[in-house]
């Protein structure tokens, strides 16, 4: 037996090193171009974009500065712990002196590679993440020493099996009924188990002080995040696609630096509010996005169509686990004892989530309430319900959401798409017709 022989893979196909390298070079080149094009377009959409956005543009380069920083930390012996779902308690990772980084794929090109492993009917986020692993495209996924996979939807559940061919995977079992004491008890046990797992893996003990510091860091980030969202309540001072990038960059950036930069961005935006310096006319239809997560870079296809269309809309809020849900809710700690902090983390990650993986049968109206509250507070005039084909949970909740929005007379448009650029022309017609509809309600 040659010593180069690899362990047999249960899920992933065997691919020759040469093919991996070739594909990686091609897709990476294409992706770098898409990232650059996205940013160039975003700059064009807002002719005097806030200066602080330069920082986020830099962090948005997935193959750039942040990859190098993480690599340097890794060389020094730090563990990198990736996660695939927002339920992963990142504070525990930070408290063990490891780096948390989200690794869901936003690359359209790799979804076609994923088709070799799972059928095309499967959600493209899953297929694309598999494809990214196959050609070692994703810097953060490759750098991860272990992955936390929360078993929420079917896609996430099976994705963790497939990735286990090449990665250490820790599955977390999330209850499907939210409002019950036994669910919280069960989930708390999962959180405590995860703490032990992280401690063993990193060799670092999570102490009362280190956890307190990690939670405090999150609190500060949430505060900065909320300040930014407050600024989106009034006349538009920031393009939605810029704000969405800021929010999402948190999941791979350094937490403290992100907070500092977001505060700086808010300072800049506050000056613009005083100068009544808007990014678009205040009568531009105000749009909220909800549904399947949108991952940078390729999924900026839709925000671009909304904000650069004819007529255009302005995205002022979202209810997505790739956007505002990342930081909306602080961890509510009463006393800074280890037990209390762990309980607070358990509650925050379970109770604050509006993921459609929960049943609403037992009276859980959290997602609907979030949406209705946003509509009211952010003065939303229309909602785009975004669904990637194969994303069953969001698709199946549409009617319930539509009924709730119908009651308050807010139009909602169901927009289904794929990880492809081929449907841009058709999507443009659909999005623009929806913006015309919203405009006609304001004034024609």
């Amino acid at each position, binding site marked *: 037996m040659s010593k180069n022989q690899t362990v047999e893979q249960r899920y992933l196909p065997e691919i020759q090193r040469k093919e991996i390298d070739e594909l990686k070079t091609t897709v990476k080149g294409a992706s770098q171009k898409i990232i650059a094009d996205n940013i160039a377009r975003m700059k064009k959409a807002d002719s005097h974009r806030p200066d602080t956005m330069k920082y986020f543009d830099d962090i948005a380069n997935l193959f750039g500065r942040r990859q190098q920083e993480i690599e340097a930390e890794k060389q020094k012996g730090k563990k990198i712990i990736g996660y695939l779902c927002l339920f992963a308690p990142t504070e525990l990772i930070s408290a063990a002196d490891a780096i948390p980084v989200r690794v869901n794929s936003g690359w359209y090109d790799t979804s076609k590679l994923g088709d070799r492993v799972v059928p095309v009917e499967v959600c493209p986020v899953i297929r694309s993440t598999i494809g990214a692993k196959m050609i070692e495209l994703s810097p953060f996924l490759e750098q991860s020493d272990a992955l936390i996979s929360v078993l929420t939807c079917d896609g996430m559940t099976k994705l963790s099996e497939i990735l286990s061919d090449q990665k250490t995977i820790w599955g977390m079992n999330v209850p499907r009924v939210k409002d019950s004491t036994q669910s919280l008890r069960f989930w708390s046990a999962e959180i405590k188990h995860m703490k032990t797992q992280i401690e063993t893996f990193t060799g670092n003990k999570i102490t009362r002080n280190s956890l307190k510091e990690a939670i405090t860091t999150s609190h500060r980030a949430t505060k900065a995040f909320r300040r930014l969202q407050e600024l989106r309540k009034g006349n538009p001072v920031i393009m939605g696609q810029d704000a969405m990038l800021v929010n999402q960059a948190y999941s791979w950036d350094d937490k403290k630096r992100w907070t500092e930069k977001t505060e700086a961005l808010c300072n800049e935006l506050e000056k613009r509010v005083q100068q009544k310096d808007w990014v678009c006319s205040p009568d531009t239809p105000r749009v909220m996005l909800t549904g399947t997560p949108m991952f940078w870079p390729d999924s900026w296809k839709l925000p671009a169509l909304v904000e650069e269309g*004819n007529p255009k809309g302005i995205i002022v809020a979202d209810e997505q686990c790739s956007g505002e849900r990342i930081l909306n809710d602080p961890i509510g700690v009463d006393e800074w004892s280890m037990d209390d902090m762990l309980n607070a983390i358990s509650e925050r990650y379970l109770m604050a989530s509006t993921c459609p993986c929960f049943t609403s049968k037992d009276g859980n109206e959290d997602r609907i309430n979030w949406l209705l509250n946003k509509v009211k507070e952010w003065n939303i005039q229309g909602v785009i319900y975004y669904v990637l084909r194969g994303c069953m949970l969001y698709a199946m909740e549409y009617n319930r959401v539509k009924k709730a929005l119908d009651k308050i007379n807010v139009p909602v*448009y169901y927009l289904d798409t794929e990880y492809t650029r081929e449907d841009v*022309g058709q999507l443009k017609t659909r999005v623009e017709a929806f913006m*015309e*509809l919203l405009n006609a309600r304001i004034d024609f």
Partner: protein
Amino acid sequence: MSTAKEFWRWHEYRHTMPNIAPVSDDIITAGVDVGSVGSKAAVMVNGQAYSWGITRTGSNSPESAKKALDLALKDTALSTRDLRYIVGTGYGRVNVPMANKAITEIACHARGANYIWGSSVRTVLDVGGQDIKAIKIDATGRVVSFLMNDKCAAGTGRGMEVFADLLQVPIEEIGAMSLKVEAEPEPVSCTCVAFAKTEAIGLLRKGWSKEKVLAAYTRAMAVRMANLINRVGLEPALVITGGQSKNVGIVSRIETLLGVKCLPTPNWRDGGLDPMVAGAFGAALLAKALYEKTQQI
């Protein structure tokens, strides 16, 4: 020299309304609807249909737009210089060089259907060459909500052209022919243009008549359209616009499936308002509204 008969080719024509003599004070506007298969242009005088033209869309959208508008203006007292405002619509709306503004075909068909059939229209089914749209509208012709099929051409006008060619039946006779069956066959299982063609060849080999094959395909298309209408929520009166509004096989099957009658299609062969031009009519009307807005200061 022999040329193969082009069964898919539909009637390209133009029409001028009699008894309208535009004068210089009139507000003359135009709508140009560049679809994936057909390009339509309509000229209106003070918001009344004056002339229109329908032609096939070529590979170049700007040229197709110009061709349609020239056709609409041909042999009239008007020229492009008389047009105060032009709205471009349809798939190629951004490539209508003479247009002052682009508006989606969804808003234009809504407005156009309101113009052709009046304020009672609440649901519009637009079956174009490449897509199907179900649109709910209010009494003023504004869009309330809409649905559109996904990106493939399944169950659309383009699919009908493929069938006309395959079965060697002139496209304008397809609808009537599909109704000449004793009993309605099961619909074909797939309306995808590529697969339906394969399935149809199989059925012909099995000994099915052309009529029966057409009935099975038309039925499948109608089911798809009826589903789209049901999803958007059917509210009478229902009308059908776009090229397929001329296909009696489609119209009568949708009526049967939904259990409602569509408002009758105007006799366009005799100078009636052509529902295939609905988008261009709507665009010309919106052009008038936009022109008037520029005048009030």
